[in-house]
């Protein structure tokens, strides 16, 4: 999902920066509120950031013979809601541009949009919907993180297709080509991400139930098991 430096035309790059900036401001405010709160919430926010660092640094092989990264955005979105994850995702991506030579400053707006805005909101939306339908914590978390990962890469494909429509087959032709690169490769990685996110939430559920209750991730009634 890292669009490489300089690989979006200037107009698109600045457009995505513009679209990302209000979410970023919102995310910083949200992070400020959490940092004023109790110690456990702060620690969980730290863990969410750490988790995004780990997962987005893992370059994994896929059954298509290609490789790609998970995103790690799902965990924090499930715990805190989507707003704050824009900031965390932005920091992760900035770190990767500055120190790892991965992604780009010009494309950072677009990359933040796909991973830390679309990914985060999809994770949160899926998690809340499945919980409302009465599914268990583990199942809801799994689908939230898996679908967030997929949504991120679909967004990247869309961003590239918008910038580089095919001269013959147009936008839809280009979208098919970029989806061909990203979509199938990402499926097993998205499943891994869903599983790992569920694992971490399970651990927090066994040892930090009260903190999850305070965040509203679980409710008091009928949720003794993960």
């Amino acid at each position, binding site marked *: 999902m*890292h*669009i*490489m*430096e*300089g*690989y979006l035309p*200037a107009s698109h790059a600045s457009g995505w920066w513009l679209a990302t900036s209000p979410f970023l401001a919102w995310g910083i405010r949200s992070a400020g509120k959490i940092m004023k709160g109790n110690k*456990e919430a702060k*620690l*969980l926010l*730290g*863990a969410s*950031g*750490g*988790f995004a*660092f*780990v*997962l*987005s*640094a*893992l*370059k*994994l*092989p*896929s*059954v*298509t*013979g*290609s*490789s*790609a990264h998970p995103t790690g955005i799902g965990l924090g979105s499930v715990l805190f809601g989507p707003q704050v994850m824009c900031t965390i995702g932005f920091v992760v991506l900035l770190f990767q*541009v500055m120190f*790892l*030579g*991965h992604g780009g*400053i*010009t494309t950072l707006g677009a990359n933040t949009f796909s991973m830390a805005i679309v990914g985060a909101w999809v994770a949160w939306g899926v998690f809340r919907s499945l919980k409302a339908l009465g599914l268990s914590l583990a199942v809801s978390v799994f689908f939230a993180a898996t679908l967030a990962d997929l949504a991120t*890469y679909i967004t*990247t494909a869309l961003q*590239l297709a918008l910038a*580089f*429509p095919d*001269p013959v087959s147009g936008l839809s032709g280009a979208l098919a080509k*970029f989806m061909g*690169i*990203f979509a199938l*490769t990402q499926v*097993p990685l998205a499943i*891994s991400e869903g599983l*790992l996110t*569920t*694992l971490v939430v*399970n*651990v*927090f559920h*066994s*040892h*930090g139930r009260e*903190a999850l209750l305070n965040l509203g991730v679980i409710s008091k009634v009928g949720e003794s098991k*993960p």
Partner: protein
Amino acid sequence: MKNVLIIVACIMLLFAPSVYQIGNGPEEPFRGTDNQAADQITAIVPDYKPWWDLHWAPDSFLEGVLFTIEAALGAAVVGYVIGFFRGKNEKLQEKLQK
């Protein structure tokens, strides 16, 4: 038990591509999709030149080291937080038993 199954499933997903692959895949085995997207851009717009260059890029060996450091930093934080909650929970259980 459930968590052990999750770990086993992740390991299987990690090794599956070495055993079995769908389709032909890219020419260079396990080429990153990020790079393939850049290749595709050049295929659609042959004269496209990135209009901004990365300030620097590590060689592939250093890149591996740096990604490992990033993952280790993140894992350390996650491990610390899990340890904190475990310790706190144990103390609470001891108190309840007394």
